[in-house]
């Protein structure tokens, strides 16, 4: 078998049958659930008298609504407490493994899957969260689903889905200092557009991607959905295998050898056929920052906000609405804009390497007095590892708040929210209107290292002066 992409091989292996509708009945190897998009699915099952077909292949955690300051039960937010109890009830009844706050393994679902070794190459992974694409970093087909689909996976371990095309995105060259995985993916989204990936799975390749660590690859794949692609993946290689080795749920002994053979087999053939191939030059990239209300509205830090007239006619109205919301002017620079909040966290950038890099920058410095700065580790394990290295002390000494693990200010479902029209330098993934909890709040997406620099300077600054 040659000329196949990883996508082809993994998809075919998981195909149960072609449905009369033309869709594929696709087998889901690992199902991840959390408190926000699963309770209604369990209700649907109950209404239909359906059970959970493979409870051992669903894993639950709690991330979206958990408070990151005080986690005593019952939560002070009764709505959050109700959601928590509902999840506890559902997983207990169905016999699903639940990594809760007392487990020491709780965290953002896309952080804990990989760190526990549950996420493995060649899997198909589904979760009721669009950033499930993160797991593609391991050479998985991983995508977000809605709640009715969560119901389907629970009941049948399958989904009815349409096969996408595959676009290979080759990142050539080498990144300059101060340019991170976050900048690469923001550049890709900016170039191809927030709808450019609709109907595609993205395969990221090329020297820049191949030399990335697993954590950097996860940042890349995480934001595939922001470019419209539900799936983004990277072929597994020695970096992947080295990361897997010794993880709690990774295979061991004889099973490890078999796994390795399987993982090598599923990688794209060198002569694989793609529906589309795009090249990006890593050497041309500089630190990126968004200026608008979707992740595609991004510029290099030294560039100016585009003029309205530079947009296509049908995008001009959106562009002016964007500037109105952001309180920015066309043609001006984002550099130097005074920020109110700095947020380091989210499933995009809250792993140990993100925290190390940010800590390196803030060490011995102070957060600007007008800035509220918080660090929210992606998982309890990340938090523990960071504390073992003394990163918490570095952040706290600089004036950052050091929080418990969760989604936090990425989407403002707990009490971590912007207030009024605050401007937030954020390592998260979405700058949508209202995303960070305030309808008039404003978000600037950037790498965690950039957020660290902005927190210190109190305004948008270029990380390259600090590395």
């Amino acid at each position: 078998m040659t000329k196949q992409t990883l996508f082809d091989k993994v998809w075919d292996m998981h195909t149960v049958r072609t449905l009369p509708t033309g869709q594929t009945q696709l087998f889901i190897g690992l199902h991840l659930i959390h408190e926000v998009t699963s309770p209604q699915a369990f209700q649907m099952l109950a209404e239909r008298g359906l059970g959970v077909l493979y409870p051992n292949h669903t894993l639950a955690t709690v991330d979206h609504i958990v408070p990151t300051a005080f986690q005593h039960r019952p939560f002070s937010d009764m709505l959050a407490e109700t959601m928590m109890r509902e999840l506890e009830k559902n997983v207990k009844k169905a016999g699903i493994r639940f990594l809760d706050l007392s487990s020491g393994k709780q965290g953002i679902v896309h952080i804990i899957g990989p760190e526990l070794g549950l996420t493995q190459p060649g899997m198909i992974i589904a979760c009721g969260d669009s950033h499930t694409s993160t797991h593609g970093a391991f050479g998985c087909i991983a995508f977000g689903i809605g709640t009715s689909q969560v119901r389907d996976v629970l009941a049948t371990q399958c989904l009815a889905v349409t096969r996408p095309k595959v676009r290979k995105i080759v990142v050539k060259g080498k990144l300059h200092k101060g340019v991170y995985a976050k900048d690469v993916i923001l550049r890709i989204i900016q170039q191809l557009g927030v709808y450019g990936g609709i109907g595609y799975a993205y395969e990221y390749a090329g020297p820049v991607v191949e030399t990335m660590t697993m954590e950097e690859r996860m940042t890349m794949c995480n934001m595939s959905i922001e470019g419209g692609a539900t799936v983004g993946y990277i072929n597994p290689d020695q970096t992947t295998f080295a990361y897997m080795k010794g993880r709690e749920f990774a295979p061991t002994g004889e099973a490890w050898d078999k796994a390795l053979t399987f993982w090598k087999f599923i990688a794209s053939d060198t002569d694989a056929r793609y529906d589309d191939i795009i090249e990006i030059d890593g050497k041309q990239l500089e630190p990126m920052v968004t200026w608008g209300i979707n992740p595609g509205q991004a510029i290099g830090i030294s560039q100016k906000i585009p003029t309205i007239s530079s947009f296509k006619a049908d995008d001009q109205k959106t562009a002016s609405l964007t500037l109105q919301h952001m309180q920015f002017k066309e043609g001006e620079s984002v550099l130097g804009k005074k920020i109110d909040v700095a947020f380091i966290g989210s499933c995009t950038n809250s792993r140990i390497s993100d925290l190390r890099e940010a800590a390196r920058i803030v060490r011995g410095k102070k957060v600007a007095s007008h800035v509220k700065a918080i660090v929210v580790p992606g998982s309890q394990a990340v938090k523990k590892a960071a504390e073992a290295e003394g990163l918490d002390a570095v952040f706290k000494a600089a004036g950052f708040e050091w929080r418990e693990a969760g989604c936090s200010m990425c989407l403002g479902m707990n009490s971590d929210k912007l207030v009024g029209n605050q401007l937030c330098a954020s390592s998260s993934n979405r700058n949508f209107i209202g995303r960070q909890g305030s309808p008039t709040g404003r978000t600037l997406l950037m790498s965690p290292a950039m957020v660290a620099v902005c927190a210190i300077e109190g305004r948008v600054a270029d990380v390259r002066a600090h590395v």
Partner: protein
Amino acid sequence: MSKIIQLKGRGIVVRGNDLDTDRIIPARYLKEVAFGNMGQYPFYDERFGADGEKKKHPFNDERFSGASILLVNKNFGCGSSREHAPQALMRWGIKAIVGESFAQIFAGNCTMLGIPTLVASPDEINLLMELVEEHPNHLLEVDVQKNMITVDKHEITATMNASAQNALTEGTWDSASLLLSAKDKIKEVATQLPYFNNFGDGQ
């Protein structure tokens, strides 16, 4: 399950490209364990100010009350996978959405709920939007089988994801029972997938 072949209703227009699911339903309204109340929340922050005062928005506009065909522009529903977004629209009264393009997860969620998402060209969408804004009482007819939208004397040809169209018109859009009917084949795949069985490690 019902077959969705033709839908008739009044239109409502929400203009703008890249209208994300956070705008369709802000995350703070996701803190409920059931979908029952979602009909109150579509476009909440665009419809209501900080003190609950009504803002100018099609979903607040009396002329569009009772409308069931939503007209939108490009990349509608991008962002989060929250089914709460189509649930909110459906429970408000939307039965079909016609636009220039849709984000993939959103469109998939719509299909699961029996809401067709039809795609037409920017010019045709603009024509439909102008007609509806001018004559909000006129009826639109959405023919899911023929991919056709009719209003007054205008007939607009649309496109639709073929499998979504089949699922809707054949009444198999609620897929759980369809998927479960292949239980033996599901087990076969489960047995063959090496990782699903821990690569032979009997833990």
